[in-house]
């Protein structure tokens, strides 16, 4: 497979996501312009110009009409996808670390960092009509996180809950009707870098700095599986068609030069979902992989790295032919 290399960013990639139908690929980086690409040929559709600093997170609604981004310039922005115009800008007190539309896109959630004397906050906004008024709207729900800050977040089942992953490794499920904790578990010992839902949203996978990725049930928050590596995991994604998990990671960017030069530190690593065993690796990046996403058809995936490149790789036939050896007894 010849991967497509997308070179639209000048700095490290922070997050990449496909839209629901998989024809568009969105990428955010530590430079100020998120990009959108046609996933089939890697042609760039446009850039979203407006942020004044690093863009930490982005999300696209299920109809591919709007995009939400959050960045280090203490703003959360909503964009019109067809024209690339900035519709609304929500000013926050500190930088926005995570933002996500709910499945129906009637609501969106964003979280801010604990910085500049401000606590970490989770805010839920109403996004049924997206226009300038959102800039001044007060969030429909907002609460403070007193202990370690939120580093990743996903929406739970039926848009009734959200699940936050924290710097200390905690996972908390919040009920949005009451704003209270439903479940709080601590299965990771270090920061949770990424959380992604399975195709049917019944499970989600976490990627943590403690060198593991773990699979949880979305509603009961029960730990299902664990994937161990020997390096911090920055991102993990679940295949929509096969029982496969892909993990990406590597050292922190600051530690890269001080460690062994052996190749393979920056590979995307494929694990079997059930057996928790690694079966394949794909090389490519010159630095740690920061974000991974499976194409919704499961026939390709994209990875964004610290080296600033996004690589879109379609799988060879050998990937689909591969079967995992195991005893049926």
């Amino acid at each position: 497979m010849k991967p497509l290399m997308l070179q639209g960013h000048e700095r490290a990639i922070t997050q990449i996501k496909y839209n629901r139908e998989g024809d568009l690929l969105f990428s955010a980086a530590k430079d100020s312009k998120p990009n959108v690409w046609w996933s089939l040929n890697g042609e760039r559709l446009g850039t979203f110009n407006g942020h004044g600093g690093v863009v930490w997170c982005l999300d696209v609604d299920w109809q591919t009409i709007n995009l939400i981004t959050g960045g280090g310039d203490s703003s959360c922005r909503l964009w019109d996808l067809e024209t690339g115009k900035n519709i609304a800008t929500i000013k926050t007190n500190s930088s926005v670390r995570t933002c996500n539309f709910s499945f129906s896109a009637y609501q969106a959630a964003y979280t801010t960092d604990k910085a500049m004397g401000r606590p970490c906050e989770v805010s839920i906004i109403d996004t049924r009509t997206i226009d300038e008024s959102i800039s001044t709207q007060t969030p429909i729900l907002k609460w403070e996180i007193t202990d370690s800050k939120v580093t990743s977040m996903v929406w739970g089942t039926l848009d009734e809950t959200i699940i936050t992953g924290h710097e200390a490794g905690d996972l908390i499920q919040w009920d949005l009707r009451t704003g209270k904790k439903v479940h709080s578990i601590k299965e990771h010992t270090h920061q949770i870098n990424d959380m992604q839902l399975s195709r049917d949203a019944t499970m989600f996978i976490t990627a943590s700095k403690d060198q593991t990725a773990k699979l949880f049930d979305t509603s009961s928050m029960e730990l299902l599986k664990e994937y161990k590596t020997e390096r911090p995991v920055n991102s993990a994604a679940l295949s929509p068609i096969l029982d496969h998990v892909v993990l990406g990671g590597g050292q922190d960017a600051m530690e890269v030069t001080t460690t062994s030069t052996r190749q393979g530190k920056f590979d995307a690593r494929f694990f079997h979902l059930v057996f928790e065993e690694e079966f394949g690796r794909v090389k490519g990046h010159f630095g740690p992989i920061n974000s991974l996403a499976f194409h919704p058809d499961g026939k390709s995936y994209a990875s964004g790295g610290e080296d600033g490149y996004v690589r879109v790789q379609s799988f060879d036939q050998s990937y689909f032919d591969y079967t995992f050896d195991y005893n049926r007894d």
Partner: protein
Amino acid sequence: MPVADDIQSSWADEVEIDQGALPPPSEVVENGLKIVTEYKYDNDNKKVKIVRTYKIEKRVVSKSIAKRKTWSKFGDSANDKPGPNPATTNVSEDVFMQFISSKEESQRPDDGELDGLKPPTSRVIFKCRTCQGDHWTLSCPFQHTELAQAKANEAAKSTDAKTATTNKYVAPYLREGGAGRGTSREPPGARRDDIAAIRISNLSNFAVEADLEDLVKGFGPVQKLYLAKEKSTGHCKGFAYVHFKFRADAAKAIQTLNGHGYDHLILNVEWSKPPQNN
């Protein structure tokens, strides 16, 4: 009397002018392919011609995707032409997934590759002079047999020779365990299976892999078949390589097939030559 024509510019000047200007880029669309030709100067100030070939595909997609495909570009891409812009989109080299079959391999420590290069330390350094077993000569089971007498002298000699060689410096790549690394540096063509590889040329343009298989399958087990194909059309380029399992089968195939008529063409079959190192 001949009248001298006005000399508009001397040929020497023309060469000068030529060097400054680049031929205009061209774009040709023909039978499903778009060929874009550009000229530019590389780092050494030499003129370089860049030819990019794009394949134009038609796909049936859902209405919503088709509508999005008509969106015009915006932001920093607003001025891009239709089609991928080489400044932001590139195709990189082929990357294949490496499958990990055994568990041990995946859990190998980081510098495991280098372990083989260290001189072996754990190996048994003593040897029975009588039977070359891993025990002292004193405890040899053949101690009091004829064998002991006969072997004693001979064995003593060979161990002397051995110690002489082990004391010598051995370059890392010649040491045991280093050999694995050494072979991996060889050019890919120099693999061992090449000894049973044959090259079939003057094949018809319409030959496909199945035809080739039919042709050679009678001679013996085949390890690998490779039919060279035109990238864009998928037609055969006229030659193929066949790797047999056994060299004898390959020889038989050459003998029978060389000069054999196939699809109105006479096949030319020979041993596959290792690629020339240049």
